[in-house]
């Protein structure tokens, strides 16, 4: 396992957003985290990035304990693509991409990465001089993905990459994610609400409910059980079934 969360609990005061969550992702794997709103899906990624207070448990990264401030984590090879894209709308596409690896001093390396990202996303090359605010939501998502890749990460954390996008664009985003995984052998931990789309790309998936992992396994195993129906629509108790 490259990244391993062991019994991680995250708390905001008395509320537990994550309760002893254990999950891992190996080199080159795609793992999905699913669950209803408020289950703590995004919190898993934020716990890795050090954006939320981890009150118990440990996060391991390549055998070592991952203890670092948020701004150090990207240098360890973990890039985060936040929910809602959060591109810098007053910067150009090129400048946005540069933000992904500004900590690098090596100019040639930057250019090399820029070229490879633009090769992966031709739309970014086409619009490289435009402001990010002039792009559509789908294009902004591509930009956010590209910006994450500028750090040349071994692990990419994607937080709801298809949120608020048109169905046709959703398909494209999933395609790109699969492409990134295949071509660059980047491990991908993705939080998604689009179950059908995301299960087609993942190797394994965890289902979260109220901060706890309630199921873990292959996409097939998830579709075979009715765990998703239960967490999304609520468990039906025997008494209720009788009535």
């Amino acid at each position: 396992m490259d990244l391993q969360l062991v019994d991680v609990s995250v708390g905001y005061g008395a509320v537990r957003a994550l309760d002893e969550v254990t999950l891992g992702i190996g080199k080159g794997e795609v793992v999905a985290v699913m669950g209803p709103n408020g289950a703590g899906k995004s919190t898993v990624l934020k716990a890795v990035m050090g954006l939320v207070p981890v009150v118990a448990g440990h996060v391991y990264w390549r055998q070592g304990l991952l203890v670092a401030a948020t701004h150090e984590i990207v240098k360890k090879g973990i890039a985060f693509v936040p929910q809602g894209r959060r591109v810098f709308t007053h910067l150009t596409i090129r400048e946005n991409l540069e933000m992904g690896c500004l900590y690098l001093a090596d100019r040639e390396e930057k250019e090399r990465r820029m070229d490879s990202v633009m090769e992966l996303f031709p739309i970014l090359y086409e619009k490289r001089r435009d402001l990010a605010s002039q792009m559509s939501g789908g294009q902004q998502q591509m930009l956010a993905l590209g910006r994450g890749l500028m750090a040349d990460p071994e692990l990419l954390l994607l937080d709801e990459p298809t949120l608020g996008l048109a169905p046709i664009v959703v398909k494209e985003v999933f395609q790109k994610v699969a492409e990134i995984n295949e071509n660059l052998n980047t491990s991908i931990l993705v939080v998604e609400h689009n179950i059908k789309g995301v299960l087609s790309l993942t190797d394994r998936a965890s289902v979260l409910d109220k901060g706890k992992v309630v199921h873990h396994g292959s996409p097939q195993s998830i579709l075979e059980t009715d765990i998703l129906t239960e967490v999304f629509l609520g468990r039906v108790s025997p008494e209720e079934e009788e009535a």
Partner: protein
Amino acid sequence: MPPAFLAAIDHKRLGQLPRQMWNSSQGNVEVWANVVIIAWAAAFMLWQGEGFAISVGTIFAIWAILAVSLNLVVGFTGLLSIGHVGFFGTGAYVMAVLSSTATYDQPHSVGIPTFGLPFFAALPVSALLAGLVALMVGIAFNRFRDDIYVLVSFGFTIIAFNVFLNWSSLTRGPFGIHEIPRPEIGGMVFDGELEFLLLALAFLALIVLVSWLLVSSSFGRVLTAIREDERAIEVFGYRATHYKLAVWVISAMMAGLAGGLFASWTSFIDPNSFILLESVLLVCIVILGGLASIRGSLLGAMAFVLLAEGMRFLPFLPNEYVGQARQVVLGLLLVLLMLFRPQGLAGRYKL
């Protein structure tokens, strides 16, 4: 039968003409503002003569340094600060204390230590000490953002004013400091008004150059990113707090420099020059000119100085009301600006 040439006029189109002109001028407000303000300045100065032009120019240079430096913080980084006058005052008082040669030997007068440093030795100290104060204040301020930032910077302005007012053994409190000398270097004395104007403009050029280099570098790009999404940039490997602190200190040092110039130019300062209102006016200038636009700040400062000095010559306005009337007009201008052009004369961002 109306004459043929009248019938040829399309009344409908004629009615639309004002709107069309308005629409086509919309995109060029910046150009128009430039033309109008520069023409206004030229006409005004020609009318009032050389001495007036020189003094307006000097006031403009000092306000412009302040506006450009504040724009680094307010416009480029998105931290709305009304504490800038505190650094301006710090710079002015450092200059005054270090370079004043006045002796206070009358009975009951408050004495302060005399150092008699030349202007060019005191000016770096002005900037450095303003920067040092900013560093200390900034470490505390870095926890805040948005509306809270306005409040804490407001608090700083009040504290700074009270320090100037009450630290009598250093600032002479309400009596102020006299006889602050004019710049002098290698036997060359900038005692004439024209010489001082040129010196002030040279400093303004320096500040504009430094600011321009800053904002067009990768440092400037991080500032823009902080302005848009301070939280997100931590994820990409930057410490937003370091960048915020850096730009805050740089901006304060520029304000300190402006303070030093101001003290030397007026040759007398007291705490009344460094009240909260000055800070608010400064923020108005930055917004009027345009956030995140250096050119805009220059334009805004020029418009403000022309307005403030120009109202002195209104025939129907008695002299004793000029001060108040200025504030009313500036406030009105700001309201109109927010309604019809929230990005300012030359800005790209809305507040």
